[in-house]
């Protein structure tokens, strides 16, 4: 496909998002608070809480790590993502196109779409654990990698088919339905956890800390699992949404904010969403005597409502994810109708969902996902704040009509390559990755731009 065709396809894809948001379309703080609170109570929260329990984190490490990581994540939203979003008022993709060029933007879209497919697959897997309950389906265990039974595959394909068909037929209606579900889902999490506390021997609120230490976050990993510490919890809580804050993905949302400090609304997602949901699902896991599969543990806490909550949580979050993946893939299939692309993405997603490893290794996948997408956000940040202060030009792709900004391309690929080669756990790799991406992009941009100036014999 020629560079011109790529540009045309990308422009068509984001046809409503090329202009800065108009003043009359800006939103109030409460809209962002509601959006973040709803967005961060998803199907995946049902599995993240139990996975922390399975990795033997202690109660103090869990709560302190979660508080520290959530505060850092909120600060990144408010101090990194929101200020650029309210100044440019552009979507992440349009800003990326201006900085990196349409061809590199295209590659990023495809990588992002593949990640979305895998994430949607994990959500289908989460839903399947609840749908399979009435059929007596054997649940996948923590160490399972391949499909465990024919009934698991059949249920995953059934759930996948429904998710794909609905993503094709009515994305917007489902997105709205997802918002309707949010307050109820949040209360189901809390109610289910409160109701199982007596089973764990917790008779009063004053008993909770003792039970948390002795029965829930005991500090003893399940068989074959690595031991998690405060640092694991803090870095996971900080970086699990790195693609949206330091990775700048939420520019597309925060460009509607009146003030940059609306980025602090993300605290509603981190504390009412992640903090409560991961804590409650951890309690449910302990009450299910170490069970990990979300369907059975939610049923054990809230009965039918719990199982329905798992199905809906997985379904409403898998649908927009799959829809966005289909939209991004449409760039490379110019002659395909959108429904065909969404169907193809759905088939890939459903096949991926058959592998329980996708659910059971969700923490690792989320960390990889963030690591791969983060460097481009750092590129945008450095391009906006640092390059002009060093006397360098920003948004060179848009200004010079470049198809690829090679400084950004090298910074992206080299950062991921160097981080993968580092001998540290995946949860910590994004931390040095931020600095590496920053230094590489600024350094290579300076080199390229000064060389271009020297060739032209003029000032930048």
């Amino acid at each position, binding site marked *: 496909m020629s560079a011109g065709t790529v540009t045309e396809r990308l422009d068509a894809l984001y046809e409503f998002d090329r202009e800065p948001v108009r003043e009359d379309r800006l939103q109030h703080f409460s809209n962002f608070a509601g959006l973040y609170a709803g967005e961060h109570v998803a199907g995946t929260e049902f599995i993240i809480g139990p996975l922390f329990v399975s990795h033997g984190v202690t109660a103090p490490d869990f709560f302190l790590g979660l508080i520290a990581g959530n505060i850092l994540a909120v600060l990144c939203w408010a101090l990194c993502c929101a200020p650029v979003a309210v100044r440019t008022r552009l979507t992440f993709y349009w800003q990326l196109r201006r900085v990196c060029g349409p061809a590199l933007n295209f590659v990023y879209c495809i990588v992002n779409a593949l990640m979305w497919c895998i994430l949607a697959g994990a959500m289908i897997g989460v839903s399947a654990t609840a749908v399979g309950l009435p059929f007596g389906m054997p649940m996948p265990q923590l160490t399972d990698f391949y499909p465990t039974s024919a009934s698991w595959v059949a249920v995953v394909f059934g759930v996948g088919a429904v998710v794909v068909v609905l993503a094709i037929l009515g994305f917007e209606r489902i997105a*709205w339905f997802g*918002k*309707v579900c949010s307050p*109820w889902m949040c209360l*189901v999490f809390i*109610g289910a956890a409160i109701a199982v506390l007596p089973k764990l021997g917790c008779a009063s609120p004053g008993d909770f800390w003792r039970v948390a230490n002795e029965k829930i976050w005991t500090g003893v990993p399940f068989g074959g699992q690595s031991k998690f510490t405060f640092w694991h919890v803090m870095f996971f809580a900080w970086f699990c949404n790195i693609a949206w804050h330091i990775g700048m993905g939420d520019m597309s949302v925060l460009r509607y904010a009146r003030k940059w400090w609306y980025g602090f609304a993300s605290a509603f997602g981190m504390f009412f969403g992640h903090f409560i949901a991961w804590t409650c699902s951890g309690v449910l896991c302990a009450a299910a005597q170490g069970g990990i599969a979300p369907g059975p543990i939610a049923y054990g806490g*809230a*009965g*039918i409502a719990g199982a*329905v909550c798992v199905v809906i949580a997985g379904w409403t979050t898998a649908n927009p994810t799959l829809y966005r993946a289909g939209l991004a893939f449409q760039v490379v299939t110019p002659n395909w109708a959108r429904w065909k692309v969404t169907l193809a993405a759905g088939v890939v997603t459903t096949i991926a969902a058959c592998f329980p490893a996708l659910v059971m290794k969700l923490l690792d996948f989320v960390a990889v996902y963030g690591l791969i997408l983060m460097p481009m956000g750092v590129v945008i940040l450095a391009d906006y704040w640092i390059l002009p202060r060093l006397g360098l030009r920003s948004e060179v792709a848009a200004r010079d009509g470049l198809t690829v900004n090679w400084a950004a391309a090298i910074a992206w690929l080299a950062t991921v390559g160097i981080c993968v080669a580092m001998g540290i756990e995946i949860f910590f790799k994004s931390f040095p990755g931020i600095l590496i991406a920053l230094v590489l992009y600024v350094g290579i941009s300076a080199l390229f731009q000064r060389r271009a100036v020297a060739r032209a014999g003029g000032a930048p």
Partner: protein
Amino acid sequence: MRAAAIVASALGLLLTIVPACLVFAGCLTWQTHAHLMTAGMFLWFLTAPVWFRD
């Protein structure tokens, strides 16, 4: 109609959370709490779409 739907939705949410607190306090069995939570679920999903804004 809208006001009635909002009241019914609020009742649905109360049925989702209050019985769980009563189980914790030892005033209700887990089974009853599960039934009430299911009733709350139906109430919420039947009434919330009537008034919930985009």
